[in-house]
């Protein structure tokens, strides 16, 4: 499918800000499952944007606005061609224990995605969930991760506004409520506890299918988060516990990392009073002609 993704962020400052510096992780990735064409980034006030690729392979864009400004607006626009994604056969034919064994060869590469982080605490953090039945050694790998995906979907309620990014995982576990970011962190915690490398993905989702009468997919105003699980074959597969499915044609991937902090869309600083108003508009529109 072909999408036009627009991600617009606007800050309004009550008293003028100066010395704004920002790093953006909003540029969709080009990889096996998606191709990006016609990328456009407009920042107001007008400044030069520079780029680099970070440790996790994400495209980072950065800018600085030294002069006083009442408003900062960042508009990122991209056309993305996505592909359907299916679980590869090799993942269906191998047990969890075997998969773990195979992946040991890539431990160096996978290491960061097996570690706890401030947002993804391991082991004791998920104790109250009693998920010992998950990811058993003898279970088939593909089944195990899909079952976990479904289990989160079925046991947790999507509720926006209930949590913030700083809400610790134990609160989400306690109340069984949260948003896509929380479910992604939860799933990472379980997978990593069972020594399966998994990483956080930020991106967009086409929340409403314009062509069918399918139930709407859930995303936070089209800005979305899910996880990627390392496959024994060397690739990663995206799983979306919020929508109980493989991250496929209607998911547009932007950045990956150990947790949300590695992929935050905008990290910035400015000088001025703490009274800014933030407005974010994200839209994912399907383009004709597939």
């Amino acid at each position: 499918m072909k999408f036009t993704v627009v991600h617009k962020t606007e800050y309004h400052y009550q008293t003028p800000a100066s010395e704004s510096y920002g790093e953006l992780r909003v540029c969709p990735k080009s990889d096996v499952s998606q191709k990006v064409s016609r990328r456009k980034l407009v920042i107001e006030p007008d400044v030069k944007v520079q780029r680099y690729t970070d440790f996790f392979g994400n495209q980072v864009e950065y800018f600085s606005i030294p002069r006083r400004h009442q408003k900062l607006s960042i508009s990122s626009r991209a056309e993305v061609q996505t592909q359907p994604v299916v679980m590869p056969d090799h993942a269906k034919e191998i047990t969890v224990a075997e998969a773990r064994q195979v992946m040991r060869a890539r431990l160096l590469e996978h290491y960061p995605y097996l570690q706890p982080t401030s947002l993804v605490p391991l082991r004791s953090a998920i104790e109250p969930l009693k998920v010992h039945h998950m990811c058993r050694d003898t279970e088939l790998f593909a089944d195990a991760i899909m079952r976990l995906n479904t289990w989160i979907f079925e046991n947790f309620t999507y509720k926006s506004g209930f949590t913030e990014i700083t809400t610790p995982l134990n609160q989400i576990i306690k109340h069984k409520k949260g948003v896509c970011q929380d479910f992604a962190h939860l799933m990472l915690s379980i997978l990593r506890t069972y020594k399966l490398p998994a990483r956080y993905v930020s991106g967009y989702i086409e929340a409403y299918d314009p062509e069918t009468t399918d139930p709407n997919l859930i995303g936070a105003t089209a800005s979305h988060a899910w996880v990627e699980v390392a496959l024994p074959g060397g690739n990663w597969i995206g799983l979306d516990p919020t929508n109980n499915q493989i991250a496929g044609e209607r998911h547009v991937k932007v950045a990956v990392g150990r947790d949300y902090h590695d992929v935050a869309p905008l990290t910035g600083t400015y000088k001025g009073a703490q009274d800014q108003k933030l407005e974010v508009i994200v839209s994912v529109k399907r383009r004709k002609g597939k």
Partner: protein
Amino acid sequence: MGACLKSLKFRIPHLKILPQSKQPMALASISGTIIRKSELGDGNPSARAFAKPFLKSFETFPLKQLMQRRERLQDMGVELGMHFKGADTFSSETTFWKLDVLPRILSRQEWEFLENGLVQRARAFDALLRDLYSTQRILKDRIIPFDLIFDDPAFLYPCHGVLSAKQPYLTMGAVDLVRDRKGQWMVTGNHYSTPVGLSYILQNRRMLAQTIPELFESMDVEPISGFSSDLIEVLAQQSGKSKPRIVLLTSGGIEPVTFEEAFLARRMGIPIVEPSDLLVRNHQIVLKTVGGLKPIDVIYRRMPSIELDPIAFGSHGRGGIPGLLNCVRRGTVTIVNAIGCGVADNKALLPYSDQIIQYYLGEIPLLPTVPTYICRDPDQRLEVEEKVDDLLLKPVHREHETGGLYEGGDRKTYHQRMKKLLKSHPKWVVAQPFIDASQYPRFIEKKLVNRPAYLRAFTLLGERPMALPGGLTRQALASDPYLYVADFATGTKDTWIPTGKKRKRNKKQKSDRQRPIASFSDFPVSSRVAENLYWMGRYSERAEHTARMVDILVESGWKHIGKRERSNLWPLWQAARQASGDTTTKKRKTPPKEIIPIARQLILDDSYSGSAYNNLKRAHWNAAEIREFITPEVWTCLNHFTNSWDEIPYKGRIAPARLQPICEDAVYEFARLNGTINRTMPHDDGWECYRIGILLERAISTTTSLGIVLPHALRHTNPRSHEDPDLTTLLRMLGSLDAYHREYRSRTYARLVAELLWKNDETPNALAYCLRYIFYGLEALHDRKRNSRSSSLTLVRELKSQIRKLDLETFFPNRSMDSDQVSSHETMDLEAHAQSIERFTGSVNEALGQLHTKIEDRFFAHLSGAH
């Protein structure tokens, strides 16, 4: 790994406390035994041979003289501010510098071996850092377990791939060494991120040479003073520019290292800056100075990597420089040592030292490393737990990368604390055996006594890698062997290396060298310093002004005066309040019953932002921010004053009778502060900013006061009355009554008061005076920049001429007022005149506000021309 450690045998320190011999008259009688038992005697004949003639000359020193010299050494250290404070909470004691009169002498041969080993090690760890932040070959080849690196918070993911393959990571490094009784040198720890101690070495040598020059006659010592010029040259080499701008970056104010930073910066002729002095402009790091933005090429880093860039590493410490890492990435600035070097200091890497050297250099490691248990390894941890009290536990990283050289404190507490850490976080603990360190004689009390000696040695990797000849020798002072651990050694020694053939060549090289470095004078006063001085001026002036006004007003009484008098005094109170920054009382037309609460609020109320107390505290805060640029006299003066106000009890309920003396004192104290500043601070750009701050604040407060009192006088005063008492009070409040009498020799009339306080440029409280000297100040700032086109100067010029041309007739047309006659239609016009005064003062205040913004943009924030 575990197996090889198990086979190690640990020697138990067998340190004897020396027998108390009879008091010698000179040292000669006992030094023989002492020397035999020291490292000069234990299988180190070459060192002894070198030291012999030297020791002979030392022995001839009369005891009394030696003690005097030692005292002088200590005094010099105190004078220089060389001391160290315990970084631990349990030892807040300040310990003064203890430099021994007897230097430690290493043989040439021993040193050459050491130098080669030190340089080899530094080169290998430099290669390690470059590899870890790029291809990670050493991890892929499984030479070092990768979890060791990836779990280390000092390994900074965002730094991965930032530097090109050729850029150095580790420029200046240090290691801690110990020499065992057999003469075997071993490394006990790396300091490859921000090594501390260089200044102490250079200073020790200088102090010793000044205090006991005789000693140096007996031996040619390898000079060390050139090391700081070597360092600055290597720093300069990093940029590839012929005249690079180099700064020393510190987080500021951490006790044990401020001396070192100030010393090194002065020695190298580079400015000390803090993160808030620097800014990213056009992807280039610039230094904000009063003279504009100066691009910086090389940053000599003296603060932890993680505090450097909040964008890259999140917020730590005092803010950092957003975008710094991206400037490094683009190559517009070089940081020395590179960001992320801290990972090389992880003590759990120590057991891999030999492998690291072999892996990268393909050389046989020269300097062994003290055996180190890594407690993250379960097997090794078990072993450590078994004999925990026979081992020295250490955290893998010091709490701060820059970590104090001397933590002081009590070893028992330390050991208990480390055992706790071992239990809770074995990952962060390593253990080393106690090394029976070689002893070196030290002059303690009245005799030479042997004490174990440790060495911190420095390396510099430039075009010609080198080690500083010698290093910082540390010794435990106590006779308790329990404290014979390098970290508890609080005595120091100069370390001497006999000159080799190399010396002559070096000398020639040095004289041929040209200093390619931008000199100190190329850097005008930093904007941070200037801005703090400016605000110090403004806040102290505001506080002084409030104190003086309240002093006069309280004296004028309230409780026992008539209603009419009260309503005439009330505008003056309003003026005082408004000048302090409050705008709410202006609306209140009727005077309150009680005035003391308002007076208390204006002077001592901590919660009222405009109170004199609050403004004083702010001025104090500004001064503290730039403590190193304030003279001790000014600091003492301001500090005492602030403390005395802090200590006033029951500020909210203070008796009316006490209020006035407090105000009166404050006026004197501020005069003293201002005088001390003018007398002791250099009259540079920073001082100009202080002056401008004072004058601008005064201009604002005069304008504000007149804007309230004059319209009131026009509206309410009976022109036929003999004198206007409120205007007299106003003049007193503005310290201008005497000036008025001199100028006019008449009763106070509104028009004349206005003329004096607006137009007279010789009366210090007058607007014209303030503008005149603000203009001079700004001119001085611009002159030094050779740039006369400035919007702030233009603004002041316009304002000045506007005031000069101001026709007072438009506000006070009633010339007949002078003759005490007034016509009725003129009375009717008074309201219109009062309003036009309000409009005028309002517009002046607005212009002064603009002037503040222009000054701020131009000299402090550097935003001018950008909006």
